């Protein structure tokens, strides 16, 4: 099983198929810079704990002016 990550960026989103550990490491690294959203529920992933087989989106945190 893998975790599918769609990460939004300048070239459109990139899709990563990662093992749970790799995906969790990416989530931990990008925490604070991205909202991590479950694709099925479109809700934010609580405490950034990913599950095997999960599909998530990394949505960049944007600033207010």
């Amino acid at each position: 099983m893998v975790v599918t990550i769609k990460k939004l960026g300048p070239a459109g989103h990139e899709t990563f198929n990662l093992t749970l550990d790799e995906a969790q490491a990416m989530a931990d690294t990008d925490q604070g810079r991205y909202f991590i959203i479950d694709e099925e529920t479109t809700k934010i992933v609580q405490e950034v704990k990913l599950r095997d087989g999960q599909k998530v989106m990394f949505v960049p945190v944007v600033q207010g002016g």
Partner: protein
Amino acid sequence: MSESFKFSVNDKGLFSVKEKKLSLRGILGKRARIQSKILEAQEKLRHWQTELDGLQRELEALNSPVVNDWIQHMEQLKLGAEKKAQELLRGFVGELAYQKIQKQGYVNFTAKDGLHYKINRKGHVFRGEKQLCIIRPSELPLPDFVVAALVNVRESPRKFPLRR
């Protein structure tokens, strides 16, 4: 050069005649000044010719096939990113909301503060009639920005001030 006036009288009246004396020093001085101005003009002409040649070479380089191919490649990438982003937006908001954005230009949502917001297809978010101030990250395709603005306002609505 020195000036002098002479007078002549004839049956028609009195006439004054202005004469200029050209001294050797005066002639040499005037020639030297003209020569100097010519050199100065030639120097400026050379400078602007060099400037013009440089600009022409730069423009020629920017019009070269390598650059044109790269521009075309980047435009293709941008188009691909835009298409991917549209699909992502459609998947994220759902078909119904996506169609509403396309047709009506906006969709409503409720944020964590319990208030109702409206987002349009440009990613502008409104609380009531007032627009929130959100800085668009550079080069993020527009549909991706719509997703980002929606998620950010939904999760942290009070982070974004109203636009004045």
